[in-house]
C-alpha cells in the first residue's frame, strides 16, 4: 500500500472513530461506526485481503450495523446528557490518554523498521477465498471449531439473560 494512501485512510479512520466516541446522539455514533467499518474494509482491500474486505462490509457495515440502528430507533434513544465527571478524574484520564498516545507515537517513530520485514506486494494467492478456506480448515481448524463452541455458548447465554424478568 502506498504510504500516502495509507496516511489518508488512517487519518479518516481516526476521525470517524473519534466521531463514534464524541457524538452526543446515538444515531450519529452508529453512523460514524458504519463509516469506520467501511474505511477498515477499504484498508483490507489495499492489503490484498479481498475476501476479508467483502466480509467486513457484508457482516459488520451491513448486517450488524443495520441491527444497531434498528435497535437504537426502536428504543427511541435520545441524546446523551453531558457526562458528569469529577474534574480531577477528567484531567487524569486526559493526561493518561495523551501520555499513552505520545509514548506510543514516539516509540513507533523510534523503532521504525525494527520489526520483521514485510513483503509487499503479497503473492497472488494471498487473500483469495480459496487460500483463506484452506487455512481455515487445515492450520486453524481447532480455532474454527472453538469459535463454533464460543458462538453456541454466546447464543445460550444471551437467551438465558433475555428470558429473565426483574422483580
Amino acid at each position: 500500500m502506498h504510504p500516502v494512501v495509507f496516511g489518508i485512510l488512517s487519518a479518516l479512520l481516526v476521525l470517524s472513530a473519534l466521531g463514534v466516541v464524541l457524538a452526543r446522539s446515538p444515531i450519529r455514533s452508529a453512523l460514524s461506526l458504519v463509516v469506520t467499518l467501511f474505511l477498515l474494509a477499504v484498508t483490507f482491500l489495499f492489503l490484498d485481503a479481498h475476501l476479508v474486505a467483502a466480509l467486513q462490509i457484508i457482516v459488520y457495515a451491513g448486517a450488524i450495523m443495520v441491527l444497531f440502528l434498528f435497535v437504537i430507533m426502536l428504543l427511541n434513544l435520545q441524546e446523551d446528557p453531558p457526562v458528569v465527571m469529577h474534574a480531577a478524574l477528567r484531567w487524569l484520564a486526559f493526561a493518561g490518554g495523551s501520555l499513552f498516545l505520545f509514548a506510543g507515537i514516539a516509540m513507533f517513530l523510534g523503532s521504525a523498521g525494527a520489526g520483521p520485514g514485510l513483503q509487499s506486494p503479497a503473492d497472488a494467492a494471498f487473500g483469495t477465498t480459496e487460500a483463506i478456506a484452506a487455512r481455515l480448515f487445515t492450520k486453524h481448524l481447532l480455532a474454527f471449531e472453538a469459535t463454533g463452541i464460543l458462538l453456541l455458548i454466546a447464543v445460550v447465554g444471551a437467551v438465558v439473560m433475555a428470558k429473565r424478568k426483574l422483580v
Partner: protein
Amino acid sequence: MDLANVDSLSFIAPEIVLTVTMLAVFVLDRAVRAAERIGDAVRGGLALALVAMVWVPHELDGWLFARQLVHDPFAAFFEVLFALAAMATVWMSMGSAEVRRMQQGEYYGLLLAATIGACFMAASANLLMAYLSLELLSICSYALAGFVRHDRGSSEAALKYLLYGGVASGVMLFGLSWLFGLCGSLDLVEIHAALVAGSVPPATLTIALVLILAGLGFKISMVPFHMWAPDVYAGAPVPVAAFLSVASKAAGFALLVRVLYPTMSMPAGGGAWDVLGGVEWPQLLAVLAAVTMTFGNLAALRQQRLKRMLAYSGVAHAGYLLMGLVVLDDTGLEAMLFYLIAYYFMNFGAFAVVGILHDHAGSDDLGAYRGLARRGGMLPAVAMAAFLFSLIGVPPFVGFFAKLFLFAAVVQQELYTLAVIGVLNSVISVGYYFSVLRMMFVEPPAADAGVVETTWHARTLHVVLLVGTCALGVAAGPILGFARYSLQFFSG
C-alpha cells in the same frame, strides 16, 4: 512431535468428552425434567473427562493441531485442576437450593463450556487460541454470574462483569496485536525466537506487555483490575463465585506463566530464568503483587458479607500467587502450582460452607453465622474453621505449606522486602478470618435462628475438601514433587 489435525484428536479426548457432555446436557434438559439427573450426567461426563486426562499419552510432549495447542505436563496439570474445579462446582450446585431454581441445562452447559475454555487456555500454543479460549471462559462466566432469576444483584454482577471484561479483553487484544506486530508471529515459540534474536525495541515491548497484563490481571483479579470481583462474587450464585475464584484465576495464571516464562524469558540453567527483550517485568510484578495483597487484605477487613470478604481475600491470594512469578526461578513457579492446589481445597471449602448458610438464611451476612456451631452446624463450622486457618496459613493445614514454599522461594532470591510484606499481610488477614470464627463458635445463636440442616450430599463435599486441606499438608513433599514434574514447557 508436531501433529496434524486428525492425529491430534486422541490428545484432546478430555475436551471432546466435555464438549459432548455439554451438547448432551442441552438436549437432555428438554427431555428429562428431573434436575438431579442432569447434575448426575454432568458429573459422569466430568469423571469420564478426568479418566481421559489420565489415559492420554503423557510420555511424549508436542504440538497439536498444527501448532494450535501444546501438549506438555504444564497443560496437563491445569486441565486436571480445571476438571476438579468443575466437579466441585457441580457437586456444590446440586445441593444448592439457589441453583435448583435455575435453568439446569443451560447452567451446567455454560459451566462445562467454561471448563473447556480454561483447558484450552492453559494449553494454547499461540496468541489466537489463547485469546479465543480466554473469551470462551469469559463469556460463560458473564452469563453464569447473572444466572439468579429475579435478582437485581445478580444482574448487576453480570453487567459489571461484562463491561469490565469487555474493556479488559479489548485492551489485551490491542496488546496482543502489538506483540504480533513486533515479533511477526502469533506462535509463542516464534515470538520467543524473535525476542532471542533481539530485534524488538524494549520500550514498545513494555507497552505491549502492560496491555496484555491488563487483560490477564483482570482474570486473576489483580489490583488495579480487581474492581469487578466483590460485586460479581456478591451477586453470582455461590457455586459460580467459587468456580470463578479458583478455576478462572488459575486459568489466568496458566496463561500468564506461559506468556512470561517460556515465551518472554529463557532458562539460564539451575532452574533460573533470564528476562528477554530488556523488559524488566519482574520489578513491575513485584510491585503489583505487594499492592494487590495489601489492598485485598485491608479491604477485606471492613466487609460484613462473606462473599465480598472472600472476594477481597481472593484478591489478596492473587497477590501471594504473583510472588511466585516474580522470583524468576523454578522454585517460585513450583510454589505457585502448589499454592493453586492448596487454594482449590481451602477456597472451595469456604465457599461450600457459605453456600449452606446462603440456602439456610438467604444471605451471606456475617450475622447469619452467629452461633453456627451450637445450632446443628457443627460439621460446617469445624470445616470452615479448618479452611479459614488454612487460608491464613496456620500449620498443619495445607495453606501453611503453600505459603511456606512461596515465601521460601522469595527469600531464596533475596527479595526480603516482598517477603516481609507477604508475612505482614498474612498477619492482617487473621483479623477478618477470625471475626468469622468468633461469630461461629463464641457468639451465642440469635433467639429466632433455626437449626441448620445439612444434606449428606453437602456433608460429603465438606469432608472431601476437609480431608484434602488437612492431609495434603502432611503429604506436602510428594505434591511439591508433582508440581515440579508439571513444570515442563514444550518449546520444540
